[in-house]
């Protein structure tokens, strides 16, 4: 590595909450920091001190660091500087911002994954408030939304985001790159408590196994005990054919998703709003997922301006058996959530089942009956989940049981 000058980050009239850093190693003259910031008066001193601390951490004694700052938060500035340093200095050290305690929070295998909001992995302005939109998951994307030459710096940014941004209870997901690059991505996200990894363009169980074993390796190395879940994304005809095998290739898999943009390209068909051209593939994915006991998740809907079409899309998706959908704009989240939410009849039925179960427990019965119908255990579990979900979505009060007169017939 003999590069002496490097640039990372972004600047320009439309860039917000980011900064561009240019670092040139020099032979003498100490550290020179040239800062141009939108928030100079309020944070100029603090940014300069941050720069000095990070350069010192990496043992750089002589350099010129130019920063053009459009109001970047501290974790972004750190990420940009670390990335620029790593272009000119060979180091395995990492300058880690403190981790928020609530970001260590583990996820659950069977939590709802109705809406997952994609956030480009190298665009800080879209990350900071991503958690506010009540998506079930936030996907920090290192794959398609990051330009090839920005992949390295995006990893560091995503790592810092996992440590510092509050996502308000959303599952913290990362979509890694394909192949070797994806395995390297894991080094930047697994030690920082990512809950779930999306494996793009998955076509075989081997790909999943490679990711799985890398995760085990990292967990052992860092003594991590949090579960990390996997969600392979099927985006090709070959992938569709292998979907069941993929779905049960690892215990870590909790869901399998379909990506229709790439799939339709692979099939050589045009993607339509009705989606009849991918009906087979989608039905197959749903079937594979259900057979493997995991959640089937539908593709994103790309017209962010047409909420009515999205709503219809969600309804047809739900009717096929999908249990969630990706979102590429925060405004899609409520539409998707409402679409996958249980309807009034479903809620009523679930309430009755839960009450019948309570009744059976009270009477010490092993068998749950509703009227003349026997209710299986999974149905009770499912009903309880529907009720919990209805409560979470505000469709049912917490104390709904108090409002219901106990039937004594």
């Amino acid at each position: 590595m003999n590069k002496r000058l490097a640039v990372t980050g972004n600047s320009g009239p439309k860039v917000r909450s980011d900064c561009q850093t240019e670092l040139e190693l020099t032979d003498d003259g100490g550290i020179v920091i040239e800062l141009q910031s939108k928030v100079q008066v309020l944070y100029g001193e603090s940014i300069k001190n941050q720069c000095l601390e990070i350069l010192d951490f990496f043992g750089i004694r002589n350099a010129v660091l130019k920063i053009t700052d459009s109001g970047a938060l501290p974790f972004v500035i750190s990420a940009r500087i670390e990335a620029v340093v790593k272009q000119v200095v060979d180091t395995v050290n990492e300058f880690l911002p403190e981790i928020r305690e609530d970001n260590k929070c583990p996820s659950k295998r069977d939590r709802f994954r109705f809406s997952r909001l994609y956030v480009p992995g190298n665009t800080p302005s879209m990350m900071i408030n991503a958690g506010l939109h009540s998506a079930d998951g936030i996907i920090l994307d290192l794959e398609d939304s990051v330009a090839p030459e920005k992949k390295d710096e995006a990893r560091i940014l995503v790592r810092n985001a996992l440590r510092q941004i509050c996502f308000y209870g959303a599952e913290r997901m990362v979509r890694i790159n394909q192949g070797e690059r994806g395995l390297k991505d894991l080094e930047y996200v697994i030690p920082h408590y990512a809950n779930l990894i999306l494996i793009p363009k998955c076509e075989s169980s081997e790909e999943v196994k490679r990711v799985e074993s890398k995760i085990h390796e990292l967990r052992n190395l860092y003594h991590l005990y949090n579960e990390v879940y996997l969600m392979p994304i099927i985006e090709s005809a070959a992938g569709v054919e292998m979907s069941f095998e993929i779905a049960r290739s690892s215990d870590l898999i909790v869901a399998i998703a379909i990506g229709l943009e790439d799939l339709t390209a692979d099939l050589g068909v045009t993607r339509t709003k009705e989606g009849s051209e991918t009906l087979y593939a989608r039905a197959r994915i749903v079937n594979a997922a259900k057979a493997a006991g995991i959640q089937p998740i539908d593709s994103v809907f790309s017209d962010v301006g047409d909420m009515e079409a999205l709503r219809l899309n969600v309804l047809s998706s739900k009717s096929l058996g999908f249990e969630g959908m990706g979102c590429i704009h925060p405004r899609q989240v409520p539409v998707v959530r409402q679409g996958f939410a249980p309807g009034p009849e479903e809620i009523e039925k679930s309430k009755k089942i839960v009450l019948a179960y309570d009744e059976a427990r009270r009477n010490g019965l092993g068998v749950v009956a509703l009227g003349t119908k026997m209710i299986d255990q999974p149905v009770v579990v499912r009903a309880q989940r529907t009720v919990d979900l209805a409560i979470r979505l505000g469709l049912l009060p917490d104390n709904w049981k108090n409002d219901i007169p106990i039937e004594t017939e």
Partner: protein
Amino acid sequence: MINQLESEMAIPTTMNAAGREVPLEVNGKPAIPFKGVGKHKPFGNKYGPPIPSCSDFPDDGNKVVATLEEALLRCGIRDGMTISTHHHLRDGDLISNRIFELAAVMGVKDLVWFPSASFPCNDPIMKYLEDGTINRIEGSMNGPLGRFVSEGRMKGTAVLRSHGGRVQAIQDGDVKIDIAVLVAPSADAFGNARGTGGKSACGVLGYAKADSMYADKVIVVTDNLVDLPCLPAEIEGNYVDYVVVVDRIGIPEKIVSGTTRITKSPDRLLIAELTASFLEKSGILRDGVTMQAGAGGTSLAIAVFIHEILKSKGWKSKFGFGGSTKYMVEMLEQGQMGYILDAQAFDLDAVLSAGRNPNHIPYPVYNAYNYHSKGNLTSMMDIMILGATEVDLNFNGNVVTHSDGYLLHGIGGWQNCLHARNVILPLPLFRDRIPVIVDEVTTLCGPGELIDVVITERGIAINPLREDLIESVRNSGLPLRTIKELKDEAENICGKPSRPAFDDKIVAAIKWVDGTVIDVVRKIKQ
């Protein structure tokens, strides 16, 4: 230089009722420190302009003169005069700059420009501040003009007033207008003028009314001379001295400014949704509600969400007070609003509606905002949606400076609107890295006792003085926080900001609605 410095040093200052150090004299005139909301009682009589006589005006009513220059000369323009303009042509105004260009050629010095607001199109005015044609601006400073003033480059001290405060200052004689130059999209030769018609229609001329009544001399400038009578006459010809006809008073596409587009930002939409939800759950939004919302992207989105709620409940707002926009017009036309009372049309739909809908009524600021009158409209509004650059732990608000100390906005109607029943500030918790909720506002523009609710994307803080509101949403499921919690969260995310450093020199005085000085802006330390 030394003399100037000494005279600046000599101005005595005092602590006003809001704890801000303010001067007892501004631009050589005595100034009254803020005494508290509703505490200052004016006395004496209103100002009266000189008595004119019909014998000095043509019997045929034709007051047209050839050029603006001639009109200014006939008005006796000279050093030190105060010249007023209104801002209904917004960023498309072609006349204000022209006045000072002419004055500079005539060699007139030390004028006071007294606009109802300034826009980026007025940046060339800086040239006349530098060459001494203008001594100072008493009105809003935006963008580069604000920067110019903040850096201490204006000779006199700026005086910032609210729209209502401006009317108060004119009425009470705090500001004596020598010449009012009032552009009008339509006017007749007698001087009757209105905001509709012609190629430069702006809707209404609410801000020009007081100027026309109280100025010594009044010039109406139009690019659409119509036959007498030009009705409805928002400016009455009886107050007008001269009428000037020019090719163009404004640039139409800039008169209707881009500020009236609904926000696309998901974060701002979230704030708007939360605001509408708060209004609904608190019971503030109800059948017969009265409301006002501005023209910012978030306010427009709130108007849309409110409209949806009114529709779904079958409710109707008694009236809305404008700044009118497309979204208010939709409420009017679809039957969810009884009337639009309008001081200012913000977009083309509003301009057109004002021209054709009998329930879209021009309503001068004169009647709506002036604190020195027998009651005014703002205190009767149920919902008031306002912005701010900063709010502090005591709910005090700032709208004129940014946290870096630079003067960058006018007050507009903001202070006047604080008298509404429920003042709601939907704000992002931080802009880029700059926290909006701070320990203490950089410049105090509105006392916290008048600000009821701050709604951010990360929670809602209700002023503890509003126990009734806190009670109304106690079990609503809304994300209620204290203002301190919000401030801490902002600082947690952004880091604790440093404060800007100022010189002692006062560059602007901020007037409260009653004409007292609530705060000052000092020169930025370079």
